[in-house]
């Protein structure tokens, strides 16, 4: 297996506002290798964005942050980097696609020059080369008439075209890790399909690592090689996309998938619901975070945090943080 290019371990992130403190990430981690797509799946508040972008210093504004753990990019410890080095890494090594293109593009500048500047700064191109690169990135991102769009302002493009322009911007620095944070949530179904196909194509051609942060199981199913399911700041289950999406083990993953109907199946798949809502994460209870919503809950679930246990002997480790279901169903663990 290829060595990971971005790797986070034992991460704890506490967020403080004057009135409340929240443990957004509670001892969690992930890794992604070149050529691989990792999906980090969770509902709002699960900590998926904070976990992925937090180590890069991209955190919500106006909150105090306490961050512990390790994070390495290409083998280098990024948590001990100087702000200047981290900034260079963010601009060049990582490319980020956000949910809202207007948060990444400067509305006052024409689109092309924004891309060209990025290519000049981080890919080391001359002004003339950078201009050509910007046009070819626009073309590659599926924007028709890229020469014309080069000179347009963001507000002159439709939602789908803006999303493409932002993807072009994220690629301009020739990143080795592309992080897509809910890249399709704001888009219509037919445009979503286009954008997912585009990300998949870029990943195949460039062999870069992709991290998809999403709550959309469909997008995961289209793009991901591996999946990590996050619940209340902790990893509940991780493994290959096929294992996690078609043979989920953790009660939360099972509940989440059962609540997503599949209209291609012949019978009603049903929208099974998970009762209750996720915990607030302001009071740190010991034990499993899902305990209050879980059918299988036992008294030990409330006192001991379940460890991630590797199952079976598949080539891609499938890990689940639920000893109860493993014992109840006699699931073979990997020693």
């Amino acid at each position, binding site marked *: 297996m290829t060595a990971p290019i971005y790797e986070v371990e034992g991460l704890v992130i506490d967020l403080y506002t004057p009135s409340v403190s929240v443990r957004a990430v509670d001892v969690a981690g992930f890794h992604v290798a070149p050529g691989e797509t990792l999906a980090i799946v969770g509902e709002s508040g699960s900590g998926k964005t904070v976990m992925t972008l937090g180590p890069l210093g991209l955190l919500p504004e106006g909150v105090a942050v306490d961050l512990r753990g390790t994070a390495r990019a290409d083998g280098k410890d990024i948590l001990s980097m100087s702000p200047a080095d981290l900034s260079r890494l963010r601009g060049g090594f990582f490319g980020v696609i956000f949910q809202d293109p207007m948060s990444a593009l400067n509305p006052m500048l024409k689109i092309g020059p924004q891309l060209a500047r990025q290519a000049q700064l981080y890919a080391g191109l001359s002004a003339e080369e950078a201009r050509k690169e910007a046009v070819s990135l626009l073309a590659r991102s599926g924007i028709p008439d890229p020469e014309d769009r080069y000179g347009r302002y963001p507000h002159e493009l439709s939602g789908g075209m803006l999303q493409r322009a932002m993807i072009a911007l994220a690629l301009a620095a020739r990143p080795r890790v592309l992080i897509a944070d809910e890249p399709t949530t704001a888009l219509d179904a037919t445009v979503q399909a286009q954008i997912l*196909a585009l990300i998949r194509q870029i990943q195949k051609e460039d062999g870069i690592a992709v991290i998809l942060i999403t709550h959309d199981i469909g997008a995961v*199913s289209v793009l991901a090689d591996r999946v990590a399911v996050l619940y209340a700041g902790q990893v509940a289950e991780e493994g290959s996309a096929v294992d996690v999406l078609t043979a989920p083990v953790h009660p939360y993953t099972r509940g989440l998938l059962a609540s997503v109907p599949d*209209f291609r199946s012949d019978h009603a798949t049903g*929208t099974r619901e998970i009762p209750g809502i996720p915990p607030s994460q302001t009071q740190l209870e010991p034990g499993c975070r899902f305990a209050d919503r879980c059918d299988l809950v036992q008294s030990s679930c409330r006192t001991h945090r379940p460890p991630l246990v590797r199952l079976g002997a598949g080539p891609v480790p499938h890990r689940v943080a639920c000893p109860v279901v493993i014992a109840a169903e006699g699931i073979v663990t990997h020693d």
Partner: protein
Amino acid sequence: MTDAIVAPAIKATGLKVHFQTAAGLVRAVDGVDLTVAQGAFHGIVGESGCGKTTLARALIGLQPVTDGQVNILGRDRAEWARADRKGFARAVQFIFQDPLGSMSRRQTVGQTLEEPLMIHGTGDGKARRARVAELLDLVALPDTVLDRLPRSLSGGQRQRVSIARALALSPQVLICDEPLSALDVSVRAQIVNLFARLQAQLGLTIVIVAHDLAIVREVCSAVTVMYLGRVAEEGAARRFFADPAHPYSQALLSAVPSPDPRIEATRPRILLEGDPPSPRNPPPGCRFSTRCPVAEPRCREMEPALRAVPHGGAAACHLADASIHAMI
């Protein structure tokens, strides 16, 4: 009133809603005929800008209508609302996409639910409180929420409160504008199941504007697909999903990924070119012709009317009739 019994819950004819904007005339809804049978769970789907929300708002009169007519439970909607505003409100209720924006931030849940009962002079204080308790029960909220403000509720709880408020006067018709889109996946399933249960329990007619097609297939009995202010296709939900006749419907369904990655790895996908055109400037002929992979010259000249298609519903496509339709 035997007429009212057989009359559809909603019948819109030639409905148009145009907006004058600085950039020109927006034809948000541009000639829609819609029939919703009593007791139906009717889904209206389509992409942003297709006019689905404007249509829902126009049906209940939240949106001034440029042209056309809406009958609700056999009565002319405009005339009914003018002659008997309260009676109309008792019969038809609306649920908004953003529950927080549609509630007073300073009213507790209890006050929010009691208000319609007070306005309509329903019972004394004791009877109203009993009805509020009944409503909470109906939407599965604990009575501990009564004294809370909307801000302090979760998204799912807020949507339950807005559903309970809409049900306070025992309406026959409920029109809901994207009531699920602000909710997380696991909570969305709770609200979908709540709608399905309420519909069965109370015999409601529900119209739901949605963009999640899988959920529409799951709960709706009938579906209308809109594209650029017009109806592209309509029919019984199950049969529509099994055999969509309009090329746009086929592309729309194809765009929805399967949650099973093994299916996704091999499934042929239809990828449309470009974005939907602007409703300010709809293309001539069939409005989908600019993106349709199977469009013929006549599609760009002549606008197709809705006609019967194999699944028993109707589609606005020159290449579809009762025995055959285009496949893309």
